[in-house]
């Protein structure tokens, strides 16, 4: 298990983004997934990484062997859907690995080293921090309302829209407001408003592992790009 600089992770996300923008879906997508999987395992997140790889492999085999069983509209919609999934999979997987292995403090320290204004960094950090909380709150609200027989299904909504809005939509907004207040008081207590230069207990700097990883990803990307362009011309 290794630790790498959050800035390296950002650059790796950017390379993955370029990869999915420039290179059509094919055998190289599998290769890239493999690279990301190795990265995820190296960063000590092997359980979830293995799970995502297995999901990808299953989808890939379906697209290879079972898709030809369908025909007509079903075939086209399925193919388009799978195409979109394969397009987004590397990026999403990379983002999952990065978000799962980066602490908020590390992220903020790295971003302040890059001199990104706080007006952008704080909302971004809050987004990553808040999504799991929102999921948790939402499942609590849903469970509570299931007791009263209210659910977010279309049928229930059409029967009595007012109740559904009041009982499911409002609590989400109200808890969001509450957690915004709580988060901001805790952040202000810890001195987020300090106008001076941000200092950090963590040592954020590029090391050996960062260099090797960047080199591997860049080399792989350039090679794939070269082979791909050479093949198509």
């Amino acid at each position, binding site marked *: 298990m290794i630790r790498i600089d959050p800035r390296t992770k950002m650059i790796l996300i950017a390379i993955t*983004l370029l990869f999915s*923008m*420039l290179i059509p879906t094919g055998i190289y997508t599998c290769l890239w997934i493999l690279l990301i999987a190795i990265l995820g395992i190296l960063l000590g997140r092997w359980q979830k990484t293995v799970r995502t790889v297995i999901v990808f492999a299953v989808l890939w085999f379906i697209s290879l062997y079972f898709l030809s069983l369908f025909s007509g509209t079903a075939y086209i919609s399925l193919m388009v859907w799978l195409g979109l999934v394969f*397009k987004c999979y590397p990026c999403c997987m990379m983002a999952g690995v990065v978000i799962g292995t980066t602490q908020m403090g590390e992220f903020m320290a790295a971003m302040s080293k890059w001199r990104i204004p706080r007006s952008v960094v704080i909302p971004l950090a809050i*987004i990553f921090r808040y999504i799991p909380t929102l999921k948790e709150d939402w499942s609590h609200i849903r469970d509570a309302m299931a007791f009263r027989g209210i659910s977010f299904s279309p049928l229930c909504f059409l029967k009595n829209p007012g109740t559904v809005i009041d009982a499911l*939509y409002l609590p989400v*907004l*109200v808890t969001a407001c509450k957690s915004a207040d709580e988060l901001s008081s805790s952040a202000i207590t810890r001195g987020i408003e300090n106008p001076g230069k941000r200092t950090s207990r963590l040592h954020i700097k590029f090391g050996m592992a960062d260099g090797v990883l960047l080199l591997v990803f860049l080399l792989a990307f350039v090679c794939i790009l070269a082979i791909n362009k050479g093949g198509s011309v």
Partner: protein
Amino acid sequence: MNKKGDKLNARDFIITGIFSVLFLMAVMIGGGPFAAIPSLTFYFPIGAAVLAGPIFMLFIAKVPKRGALAIVGVVECILGTLTGMHWGLNFGILICSIIAAVIAGFENFKNQKLNLVAYIVYCIGAMGTYFVFYFNRESWISFMLQKGTEQSYIDVMSSVATGKMMLIMIVGTIIVASLSGLLGLRLMRKQFVKAGIVE
């Protein structure tokens, strides 16, 4: 913008972050299913406008400053770029949220009619990519193909893309956005002000 009360503090940044999540969720739940199916993709802005109205109204009541909406635009633009969306969508949202911030800011975010107009403008941002599609179809198609969108997706999309569809999309979005915005204003009056969440 240079007024003293207009400057954003840390609390505003945090509220902005949380509401950006809510905006994103609203777009994904409301519009996501449409975006994935090529023949329905033009209903995406309509779907995206359904849920966000109350969120928008609550947000501008919590942080009545122009910069806040612009930051939502910037953050959504960054996230959209990172997840590989078309630049028309990202910059459409960015530009429209800035315009919305200016419109609602005329009356310091207190005038309900202006807030409603601002929300409609904000929703039009989601149509950015389709505007690019209509006005410059060839470059749009080559851009999407280069990015690796399937040819068949674009074929199906082109076959349903007529002038009538464009009209339905714009009018539908405006209607849905005003309904959602009105619902938001009603919820504000009925619930949030009474509960003391906003003044």
